[in-house]
């Protein structure tokens, strides 16, 4: 598809010599001087466009060429309009903003003008021009259909271009376009042949998508052989209706300083004027609107709301019809989404419409909820329930069961649904917390989407995760996150098991797939696939599950999933410290210790997780130092296990550090001498073991950092219980003696060994004066907290001030 030829074409366009380019320019000027533009003009302009667009930096066209190209903007040949506007878009900088230069204005020139607008003022005057264009119903120049989207683009970028008058005017126009388009087919419908009488020359009525004659007003779901301009306007106006409703809402809120009374009078006077087409021939009394109160008497905005309501109501009915074409079936779904969103908009502005709208929404939900192919249509329906369910006192539980229950469970592999569902959650976090608090319990289900498509959704979950972390879910959520790669593998298996018959060759030989089908392991997989939290934090046979899934460790989906778990864990821990009490945090520390050896065996996965664990273990203990005394038993057990030195170096180092740092009376008064002594002894035993023997067969030496951390921790403990000082000193002196020989079995690198010994000597000399040792190794918090000693800017002035004070007082 992308050939070497294309690549070299781009290179040529980029590397073209200046002299060659100038030649090309002058040749082009000559070509453009000819009155009739033929193939050569088109070809040259296409090449010029490629040269300009292939470059990152713009090239300045010669003034004459620019002028010639500009004049093509108003050429009657569309191709020349397109090409000249494309060339100018790429080249002309500071193109004079002036519509008169491009008269009559066509759609391509108008787009060029918009792209070159250089200030809000320009945009404002452009906006005014466009509105005047709509008002005058000009037949020449920019067609009405193209004016509307440009206007939409303008108000997207700068809604404050609109004045209250504009809003009134456009709202009235929208009513006309939406509700009073012709109901007969447009041009070219019947040719009126020789045998056809005058009767059949009458254009036939429009039809519905299923072929029946349409009995109501025109909508985007009506078809005919051709369409009139007002029918096109109907399509355009409905396409931008929602944005308009959102925008005018913000405009009228923003301009609240305008005298409200005059605005009201103004809008009322407008609504009584005859400038709308409700009485023009060809309009039709709608079945839908016949029942509603006479909306003619309403001010323009309310009237537009009313008409929008009727339009959407009709669309929803039209979506019930069986369309002949697949594209129309898809369009029906898109129309349902739009209709429900528009209804949501108008109901948000006028709550009285909620009662009229809900029956339709309810019926729609009832009709579509059993068909998962309508899932993406049901999201706006859910949004409607969320926004207005309370006003209408409607029970929404069944909606949430579907959206948080069935959708993620059965459609986790639908990229678009996942994108929309997560956006829905993110935008509604506040109201969900308030109205649907049970939504956090669906986290095992919601995480399926993340497990399936981790790289694409990690961004969304970074935002969502904090809302899922509550005191009630934290522990289970932590386990679930750690097993996210298992969930990812299980989802793959679930789909494969469904698509591959048991007898098929591809299905055999895969250990995980066979395990997935094996009834004795069913419970394990069902736990992973649970939809709601609350059945238990985790399962007993986790290691069995990990063994069964060992083969999945190199599946790309599983590997990618494993890569995002550390990120999610960081978000989790940062959120959990805000909601958890000490008891829960203590529980989390236990989970950290336990799960550090219970992870799916993916290369570097454990290491990454250990790093996150270490970081947050430190954080938790720093925030709540008494956690260390609380959990001293488990922490000691962990620190006293020699194998942890070798296979969990990172987390082991941090456990030892927190023990040394926080096992102290100043952190928790429950910290007894016995506790300090038993901790000391556990660390001493490990340190002795690793420094007196060779590492376990085939393993590497203990990390130097582990050894120094152990020594420091022991010295810290000894500084708090002076009886222990001789034991540390003895060890350190032995260490010096042993290493005098130069090499030892437990440390391969000579430099490392020197550093270890130096650290040992420093600690040893410190401990010789226990008072100093205590102030250095266990300083009172008022010294460490402001961290004066680390901050030279703070420490020096402080010292100087003290000295000055002393000298002056003498």
């Amino acid at each position, binding site marked *: *598809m992308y050939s070497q030829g294309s690549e070299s074409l781009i290179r040529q366009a980029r590397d073209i010599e200046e002299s060659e380019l100038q030649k090309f320019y002058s040749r082009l000027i000559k070509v453009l001087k000819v009155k009739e533009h033929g193939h050569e003009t088109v070809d040259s302009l296409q090449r010029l466009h490629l040269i300009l667009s292939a470059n990152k930096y713009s090239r300045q066209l010669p003034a004459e060429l620019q002028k010639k190209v500009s004049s093509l903007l108003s050429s009657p040949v569309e191709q020349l309009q397109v090409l000249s506007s494309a060339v100018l878009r790429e080249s002309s900088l500071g193109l004079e903003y002036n519509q008169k230069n491009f008269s009559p204005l066509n759609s391509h020139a108008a787009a060029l003008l918009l792209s070159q607008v250089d200030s809000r003022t320009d945009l404002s005057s452009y906006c005014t021009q466009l509105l005047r264009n709509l008002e005058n119903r000009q037949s020449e120049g920019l067609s009405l259909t193209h004016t509307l989207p440009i206007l939409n683009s303008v108000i997207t970028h700068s809604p404050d271009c609109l004045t209250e008058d504009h809003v009134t005017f456009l709202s009235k126009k929208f009513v006309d376009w939406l509700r009073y388009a012709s109901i007969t087919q447009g041009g070219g419908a019947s040719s009126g042949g020789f045998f056809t009488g005058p009767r059949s020359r009458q254009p036939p009525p429009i039809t519905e998508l299923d072929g029946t004659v349409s009995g109501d007003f025109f909508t985007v779901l009506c078809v005919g052989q051709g369409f009139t301009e007002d029918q096109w306007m109907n399509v355009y106006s409905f396409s931008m209706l929602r944005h308009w409703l959102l925008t005018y809402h913000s405009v009228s809120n923003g301009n609240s300083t305008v005298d409200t009374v005059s605005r009201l009078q103004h809008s009322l006077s407008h609504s009584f004027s005859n400038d709308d087409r409700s009485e023009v021939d060809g309009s039709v009394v709608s079945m839908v609107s016949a029942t509603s109160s006479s909306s003619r008497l309403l001010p323009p905005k309310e009237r537009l709301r009313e008409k929008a309501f009727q339009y959407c109501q009709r669309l929803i009915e039209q979506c019930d019809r069986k369309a002949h074409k697949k594209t129309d079936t898809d369009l029906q779904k898109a129309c349902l989404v739009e209709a429900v969103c528009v209804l949501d908009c108008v109901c948000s502005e006028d709550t009285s419409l909620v009662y009229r709208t809900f029956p339709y929404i309810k019926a729609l939900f009832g009709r579509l909820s059993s068909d998962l192919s309508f899932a993406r249509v049901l999201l706006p329906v859910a949004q409607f329930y969320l926004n207005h369910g309370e006003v209408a006192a409607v029970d929404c539980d069944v909606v949430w069961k579907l959206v948080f229950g069935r959708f993620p469970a059965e459609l986790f592999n639908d990229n678009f649904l996942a994108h929309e569902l997560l956006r829905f959650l993110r935008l509604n976090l506040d109201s969900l917390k308030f109205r649907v608090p049970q939504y956090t319990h669906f986290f095992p289900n919601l995480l399926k989407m993340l497990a399936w498509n981790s790289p694409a959704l990690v961004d969304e979950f970074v935002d969502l995760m904090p809302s899922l972390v509550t005191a009630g879910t934290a522990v289970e959520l932590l386990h679930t996150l750690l097993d996210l790669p298992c969930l990812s593998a299980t989802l793959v298996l679930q789909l494969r098991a469904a698509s591959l018959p048991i007898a098929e060759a591809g299905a055999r030989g895969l250990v995980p797939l066979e395990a997935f089908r094996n009834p004795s392991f069913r419970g394990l997989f069902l736990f992973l696939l649970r939809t709601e939290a609350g059945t238990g934090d985790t399962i007993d046979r986790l290691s069995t599950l990990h063994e069964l899934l060992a083969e999945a460790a190199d599946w790309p989906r599983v590997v990618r999933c494993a890569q995002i778990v550390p990120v999610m864990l960081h978000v989790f821990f940062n959120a959990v410290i805000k909601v958890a009490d000490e008891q829960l945090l203590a529980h989390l520390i236990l989970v950290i210790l336990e799960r550090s050896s219970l992870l799916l065996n993916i290369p570097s996965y454990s290491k990454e997780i250990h790093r996150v664990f270490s970081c947050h273990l430190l954080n938790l203990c720093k925030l709540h130092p008494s956690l260390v005394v609380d959990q001293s038993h488990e922490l000691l057990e962990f620190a006293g296990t020699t194998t942890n030195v070798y296979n969990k170096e990172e987390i082991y180092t941090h456990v030892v550090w927190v023990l040394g740092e926080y096992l102290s009376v100043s952190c928790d008064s429950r910290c007894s001498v016995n506790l300090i002594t038993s901790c000391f002894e556990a660390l001493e035993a490990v340190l002795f073991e690793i420094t007196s023997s060779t590492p376990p067969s085939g393993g590497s030496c203990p990390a130097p950092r582990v050894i120094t951390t152990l020594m420091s921790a022991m010295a810290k403990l000894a500084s708090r219980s002076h009886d222990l000082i001789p034991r540390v000193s003895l060890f350190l002196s032995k260490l010096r003696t042993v290493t005098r020989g130069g090499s030892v079995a437990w440390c391969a690198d000579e430099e490392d060994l020197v550093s270890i010994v130096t650290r040992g000597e420093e600690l040893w000399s410190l401990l010789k004066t226990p008072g100093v040792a205590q102030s250095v190794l266990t300083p009172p918090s008022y010294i460490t907290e402001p961290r004066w000693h680390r901050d030279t800017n703070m420490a020096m002035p402080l010292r100087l001030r003290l000295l000055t004070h002393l000298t002056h007082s003498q």
Partner: protein
Amino acid sequence: MVRCFLIHTICPVSNLGPGESRILYSRVFGPNEATFSAQHRGLSPEEKRLLQKEKVAVVARQVQSAVCLSREASGRPLMESVPGEEALALQEADSGAMRLRAGEPFSEEMSALWLGVQSLAFTLVCEAHENLLLAEGTLRNLSRHCLEQLHMLGQGSEVLLKSDRVDALLGRVLPHGQLLFLNHRFAQGLEKEVAAYASK
């Protein structure tokens, strides 16, 4: 509204580093957003243009990595289609949606929809509140027209030299970035116009 439409490579290109994408066509709708941001007020028109180009390039790179990751995860072998099999190629195409956070790279949050057809991607960046079902349908429609009219399944370079056809197509199906609810009759009318334009 749609902010931009682009066609770009998702395969390794000899002259580019890994992870980079060659943009074959790009069209940004509406005014340059740097004009309205306080942060970029002082920029010259040239710098604003460059900024816009870089934003488009960021989207292309992000989509490229999204498509590659999605293909890697699905593990499906890539189908090779030849000219004439456009409908099949589209059916087999990978597709997805991506969130572009505010400021990354557009000033407001956007959704990027992509369709990966063999070594190329068609990408539509639209405002986050847009009707994505409609946007997806429009993207498929645009992609089909591009594939067919510019013979993109073949070896040619028409997408580079005849980009005005894409402009003309966008002018009808996605005028000024406006997504339209077009039923098959409206679409047929436009298709005729597009075909007439291309046959000139």
